[in-house]
């Protein structure tokens, strides 16, 4: 199959284009999607000949919305319940809160509450602008809040290939999917299959194999964990990096199998610490694989503070290669024999 170099953002655009071509019921709605402001509703290289999605598919299927997140989300839900398969571009993840009622009370509950009468094939895409000095109102990483809402599927891709394949699966899903795309990954490039493919939900990607410590990493923490693993390899510590890719459903089996092998777990998650994705993953491992653990679990997360503007303040807050490597060293040096002796 043919591959070409795609950026993370380009891969998302490619998946949206595939889906628009494949199914007339797919529509894209959101603020500024007509002018391709966020770069995922354009024809990419053929933009000169074909224009953007607006020119390719027309205004019936590519719709600029008013800045009204509550009705955007609710209307997408109502449309999904009645035959469309909307992709909603909510731009910044921080804006999802404007529509919290619709997400929690309508999108997530309608199928269940009505005894299975509704299906809800809708994808809500949003970008997490953390790490880019956007200040407290634009740098949220809110996926754990939505993990707490049964009925939603939560996707956090960390590579161009995953972004493309996971988005296709999301659009195929008859259940509501929220994807959280980290802006710091937008420019990441790799060889991506040009043809259509889908990546199943609930299947983690082992980014790097290792034997001493498992690092479960999310979003920007994935490439940072790989960098940490490179550095640690030189110190003689072998790190396995696992990217769950979807947090709901969660491939807990992959995590548990890895921990069974390594006996040590670090979870690197750019969301806040309390009730974050790292907390959930840690709890599952503590519940299910306590016997396998040779050291306490370590979380490398964003501390429970708001996000400051100044680069001098913000940068230190998110998991990075140094903080991940430090945590790995800590759990690797936790002297399992001492613990055993103490028993």
């Amino acid at each position, binding site marked *: 199959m043919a591959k070409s170099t795609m950026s993370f953002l380009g891969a998302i655009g490619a998946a949206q284009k595939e889906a628009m071509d494949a199914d007339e*019921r797919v*529509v894209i709605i959101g603020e500024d999607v007509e002018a391709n402001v966020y770069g995922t509703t354009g024809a990419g290289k053929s933009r000169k000949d074909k224009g953007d999605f607006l020119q390719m598919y027309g205004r*019936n*299927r590519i*719709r600029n*919305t*008013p800045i*009204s997140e*509550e*009705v*955007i*989300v*609710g*209307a*997408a*839900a*109502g*449309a*999904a*319940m*009645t*035959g*469309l398969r909307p992709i909603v571009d909510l731009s910044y993840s921080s804006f999802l809160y404007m529509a919290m*009622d*619709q997400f929690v*009370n*309508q999108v997530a509950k*309608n*199928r*269940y*509450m*009505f*005894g*299975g*009468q*509704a*299906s809800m094939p809708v994808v809500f895409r949003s970008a997490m602008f953390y790490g880019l000095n956007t200040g407290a109102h634009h740098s949220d990483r809110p996926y754990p809040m939505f993990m*707490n809402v*049964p*009925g939603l*599927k939560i996707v956090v891709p960390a590579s161009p290939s995953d972004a493309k394949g996971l988005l296709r699966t999301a659009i195929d*899903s*008859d*259940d509501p999917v929220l994807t959280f795309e980290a802006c710091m990954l937008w420019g990441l490039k790799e060889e991506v299959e040009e043809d259509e493919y889908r990546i199943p939900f*609930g*299947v983690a990607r082992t980014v790097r194999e290792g034997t001493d410590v498992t690092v479960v990493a999310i979003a920007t923490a994935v490439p940072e964990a790989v960098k940490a693993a490179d550095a640690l390899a030189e110190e003689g510590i072998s790190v396995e990096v696992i990217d769950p890719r979807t947090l*709901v*459903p*969660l*491939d*807990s*089996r*992959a995590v*548990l199998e890895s921990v069974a092998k390594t006996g040590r777990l670090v979870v690197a998650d750019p969301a806040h610490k309390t009730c974050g994705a790292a907390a959930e993953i840690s709890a*599952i491992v503590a*519940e*299910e694989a306590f016997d396998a653990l040779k050291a306490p679990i370590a979380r490398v997360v964003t501390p429970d503070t708001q996000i400051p503007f100044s680069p001098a303040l913000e940068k230190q807050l998110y998991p990075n290669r140094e903080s991940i490597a430090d945590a790995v060293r800590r759990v690797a040096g936790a002297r399992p024999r001492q613990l055993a002796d103490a028993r």
Partner: protein
Amino acid sequence: MDLAAMGSTTALEAQRRMLRIRRFDERASKMVKRGQIPGTVHTSIGQEAQVVGATMALGDDDYMTGNHRSHGHPIGKGSPLGPLMAELVGKGTGVCGGKGGSLHLADFNVGSLGESGIVGSSIPIATGAALSSKVLGNGRVSLAFFGDGAANQGCLYEAMNMAGTWDLPVVFLCENNQYALSTPAHTVTSGVIAERAAGFGIPGVRVEDGQDFLAVFDAVTEAVERARRGEGPTLVEVVTYRFNEHSEGLRLGVDYRDAAEKASWLEKDPIVLFRKHLVTEGVATDDELDALEREVDAEVEEAFEFSQTSPFPDPSVAFADLYTEPFGPTHLSRDGAKSAEQAFSTIGA
């Protein structure tokens, strides 16, 4: 529209549906008092002309969403009574399998996309159904029922703006029964609800006599036809009155509604009024209308029996229908060693 233009079949069907709502809600009220319904219910008694005038202006394929005062909407749209009554009791044969209850009735078979327990929250859903009709070009109209209280939720104005700019085939139907629980509408509502439509460049209509089935039917029919022609949304405000307390069994200990006001509205019983009209216009005789009432009584009795004899759902149903395909954390759902319930309870999914 006068009765001759409407035709006797439609006119009698309207009376039948209003009566169904009345008797259904009277029975539900009684069931709450007897402890046969867990929780409470909100009745539409007194508002039947407003409900049926709107639902009968819709076609069978048209969509609607509603609120907590919710039994009348699906009944008015033609939903069979048995599964609705069974739902109030929480039975497995309920229209939502026992997972919705009184607040969350939905019958997709008649275009009822669901009643929302969150005040105002289903307005965007109806707007989205209209978007779907517009994109798919299937000619279906969508109607959102909401109260005077809900008319102060921001999502209504987001929805009217979106529907106005996109010419969506949706009718925003405000059931102004003049109170939101204990709060008189005029004390929390700046201006006239129907006039708010003007700000969005869409028609706003106020039906002053919402106890008159024909007045409501005419206004909503016009809005529905306009929507179907592709000319966009309309806001219709219908002034009406609920005869019962906000919810059954509620004892507030304050008289927030003036006794004289209440008495004057009780005089304006929409079912009594329409019956009189049917007789004086020669559409039906008193005997025929008595027979119709007996038929409806029997229907409600049958629905009650159905709700009583139906089984409760199996406990495992609590874990069904969250997703189209169930899943839990993969270490539980894949090896099958633990039950689905455990899988779900572990992840909270």
